[in-house]
C-alpha cells in the first residue's frame, strides 16, 4: 500500500516536472481565479447584483466577470435571481 502511494506521488511529481511550463501557467490562473471567486462571491452574497455592478465594484472587466459568473452558475456557486432592467441578477448560493 505504501509503495503504491509512493509510486503515485512519484508519478505526479514526474508529471509536474514534465509539464513544468503549463503547470506554472495553470498555477497563476488558479491564483487569479481564486481571488476573483472570493471577490465576486462576497459581492453576490450581500444582495443580487448584475454583471456591470460586479465589474464596477471589483475592477474586473465586465466580459471576464460574465465568463466567470457563467462558470460559477454551471457549478452551482451562484444562481440567477431575477432581472434588473436588461441585466440578469446573480446571487451567491449558500452552502448547506
Amino acid at each position, binding site marked *: 500500500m505504501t509503495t503504491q502511494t509512493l509510486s503515485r506521488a512519484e508519478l505526479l511529481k514526474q508529471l*509536474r516536472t514534465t509539464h513544468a511550463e*503549463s503547470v506554472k501557467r495553470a498555477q497563476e490562473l488558479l491564483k487569479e481565479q481564486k481571488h476573483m471567486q472570493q471577490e465576486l462571491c462576497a459581492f453576490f452574497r450581500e444582495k443580487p447584483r448584475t454583471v456591470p455592478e460586479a465589474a464596477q465594484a471589483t475592477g474586473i472587466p465586465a466580459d471576464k466577470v*460574465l*465568463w466567470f459568473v457563467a462558470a460559477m452558475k*454551471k457549478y452551482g456557486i451562484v444562481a440567477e435571481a431575477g432581472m434588473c432592467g436588461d441585466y440578469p441578477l446573480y446571487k451567491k448560493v449558500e452552502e448547506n
Partner: protein
Amino acid sequence: MDDLHMDALVIGGGIAGMQSALDLGDQGFQVALVERDPSIGGRMITLSKVFPTLDCCSCITTPKMSAVAHHPNIHLYTYCEIQSVQEHGAGFDVSILQKPRYVDISKCTGCRECEYECPITVPSPFDRNLGAYRAIRVPFSTAVPQKAVLDPEYCLWCGKCEQKCPVEAIDFSQQPETFTIEADSIIMATGFDLTPVSTKKEYGAGKLHNVIDPLMMERFLAPTGPYGRVLRPGDGKEPGSIAYVQCAGSRDETLGITYCSRVCCMYAIKQAMLLNGALPMADITIYYMDIRTFGKGYEQFYQNAKAMGVNFVRGKVASIREDADQNPILKVEMTDTGEIVEQTFDLVVLSQGIVPASHPTVSLPLGSDGFISVPAPDSAPCVTGRPGIFVTGTAAGPMDIVDSIVSASAAAAEASAYIRENGSRLEVEKEALYA
C-alpha cells in the same frame, strides 16, 4: 494496441461521418470511426435547431451518436489523430495516435465527480470559449462516449480528481499510443471551420466583445448554452436590438473567398426566428446582398421570418466600430439608393462563411477553394482524385445538414462499391482461413 483490419475507415465523427459509418455498418462492413475530439457529434451537436423545420439538433444528433457507439460493426476511436496514410494494395495502412485521456474509459462512469473536484476553470470550446468547464471534465452533457478527459495544458497534477473518483478510473500513467488500422477504403468527413474573423479588420477583427460569430449565437439559443439565455458577451445585457451582417467572409475577394457559403442566409433567418421567440421585444435586422433560399421549404421559411417582423435590409456593411458602452455601430451602404447610414445595435452577428477544417495527414488534391477536390462533381460528387478515398459533408464544400446527410449516404455507397470491387481484405482472409 493490436493492428486492426477494417473494411472502411471514416475520418471525422460529425453528422456526415456518423451517417457514412452507420450506412456501411448496416451493410455488414466493419467500420472504424476516428474522431480527433474526445466525443463524436461534430458541429451539429453544438447547434440549437435545424432549418427549415426548427427541429431540435440535439434530438436528431444524439440518437445517431448513440447508434454509432452501440453498433456491432462500428469501432469508435475518439481523441485520436491520423498520423499517416500509406497505400497498401487497393487499401491503406493508417497510422493513428491515441492521445492520453488520463482516464480509464473502461472504468469511468461519467459521474463527473472529478470535474466538480477539479480546482481550475478553463474555457470550453464546445461553448465557443464563452462557457467554461474544468481541466478534467466530461466534454458536454450528451457526449459519446460519456467519459471524462483530462487536459494536460491546464492540469496542476494535484491528484484531487484521482482521490475523488469512486471507481478509480483516473490513470496518470497513460501515454500517447500509436496503432495501425488496415482499411480497404477511407471516407473523409473532416468538416469545416468559420472564416477567421481576425482577417476582417473592418468588422473589428474579433476584438469587439459584442460582435459575435454565428456558432456563438447557436450556443446562446441552445438550451445547454453558456448563460442559459441570450446575453451579449461584453457585459451580460439582454440585447434589445440585434443585427446580422450577411456575407461576412463569403463572396469576398479581399479574403480570397469568392464562393457563396450556402448556409449563411438560412441560419441567419433561423436564428432571427428563434430570437424572436427568445426575446419577443428585440428588433432584429438582417443586412444582406442577396437572400439565397434554394432548398425545399426554404423560401417559405424566409417569408415566414418577414411576416414575424424580422427586418431585412438590402445593404452592405462597410465597417463596425463600438461606442463607449460597447454598442456596435454599423456603417452601411444601402445598395438600392447608395445612401450611407449608421445604426447602433446591442449585439451584432457576423454571418461568417465556411472554410475547410484542417485536414489530417492524408494527401489529397484540393480545389482552388481549399476543399477536397472531386474531379467529377456532377456524376460522382463523393469520389476524390485518389482511388479508395471518398469525401462527404463540408469537407467537400459548403453544404447544409440535409445535403451533408445525403452526401454521407452517397459516400458510403461509393465506398461499399469500391470494397466489393476490390475484395474486402477481411473476406479474403476469412476465405483463406476456411479454404
